[in-house]
């Protein structure tokens, strides 16, 4: 089991906004900041666009962790999208908690276009923490059943 864990490569799906975090990830690239290759980015205009169904879908698609990231409060390209998003996340997390869905597998961050370094750190940390948690078998089992 343990050495199977060592080989385990978590699948991480990231929903990011087009104007801050996506550009932050671009910057990480331009600066050649290395990080694990486990993350798959879905580019959306704004965190306001990211619905809770997408997070559920990510797990159904076999993600071991989900990352949602956008502009810092006040920097939203569309002025208030991230504020509305934040409010939904607060409520959604409490629902997931009640349903016993592992909230340690859903990560929310603000990463600006200038924070390439933060993107590198966040992705690295999430990958490692997820590696420790192991595959999200609990949910995958749910998905397996019919």
């Amino acid at each position: 089991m343990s050495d199977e864990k060592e080989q385990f490569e978590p699948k991480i799906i990231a929903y990011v906004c087009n104007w801050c975090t996506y550009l932050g990830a671009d910057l990480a690239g331009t600066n050649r900041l290395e990080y694990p290759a486990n993350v798959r980015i879905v580019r959306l205009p704004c965190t306001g666009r990211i619905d809770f169904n997408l997070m559920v879908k990510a797990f159904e698609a076999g993600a071991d962790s989900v990352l949602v990231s956008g502009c810092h409060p006040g920097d939203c390209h569309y002025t208030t999208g991230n504020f509305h998003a934040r409010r939904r996340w607060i409520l959604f997390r409490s629902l997931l908690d009640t349903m016993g869905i592992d909230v340690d597998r859903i990560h929310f961050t603000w990463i600006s276009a200038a924070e390439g370094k933060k993107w590198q750190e966040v992705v690295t940390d999430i990958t490692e923490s997820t590696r420790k948690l192991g595959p999200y078998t609990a949910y995958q089992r749910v998905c397996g059943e019919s």
Partner: protein
Amino acid sequence: MLRKLQNTCRQLLLEGKVDVVIGYGQADSESPTHPVFITDAKDVKKLVWNDKCLINLVTYLKRPEIKSLGKSAIVAKGCDERAIVVLEKESQLERDSVFVIGMACAGVGQPLLPKCKVCDAHMPQVADIIIGSVENPSVDADTRYAELKSFLKKSPEERHKHWVKECRRCLKCYACRQTCPMCYCERCIVDVNQPQYIDSSASTKGNFAWHITRAFHLAGRCVGCDECTRVCPVGIDLRLLNMSIAKSAEQNFEFRAGVDPDAKPIIGSYSEQDREDFIR
């Protein structure tokens, strides 16, 4: 109370103030109550009021077939009434197109329904007329969400197992949706297949997604009438899900759905001070 109720309705119908009265009827004192739709003053005798009046009749207000009957009067308990506030906020009904007959109510069901044990809406607030009178107890949040609290004592794994078990039992009959006064979408997301948000085949996965979706679509809207749970044929306790969001809403935004007609709906408003201790 019953006489006053019947007289009020007779008046309303005779004076043409309303075209239909939505109230409770009952075959005999033993059997459960059922909704009655009275359009003729002669029939007001059919109306009953007793502790079997469990149904939240507000759910009928959103139905086109009822709307088409014209201006309606509805018999509503203090708890049911809150749904009217939300529906109005969401422009699903014009307040003055409905005459609300508020019933003072110290609780219904034998035994008393769980929601009644922690109810602080014995007296209606926004009703056009209130029949009867009882004390309006004040209930603190801890008491209100006590059941959730004890459920949350379980470990996340146990909770997850619990819901997997429940979702296995779910029949996808969608009674929870049909009876909910807040579920008025013309096309429910679960019926969309391009893209398929929710696997509608008989899979635990789909049920899981469905119950997350149903609960979250009620975020800041669920008034806790518990009809979804009451009508569930397999007895899944959906209240826990509704409660978890309601609790979060009250804790984080001092918001309770349908309680304050002037409060901004929480989905669709925000504060720059909203907490973000969970955001990195």
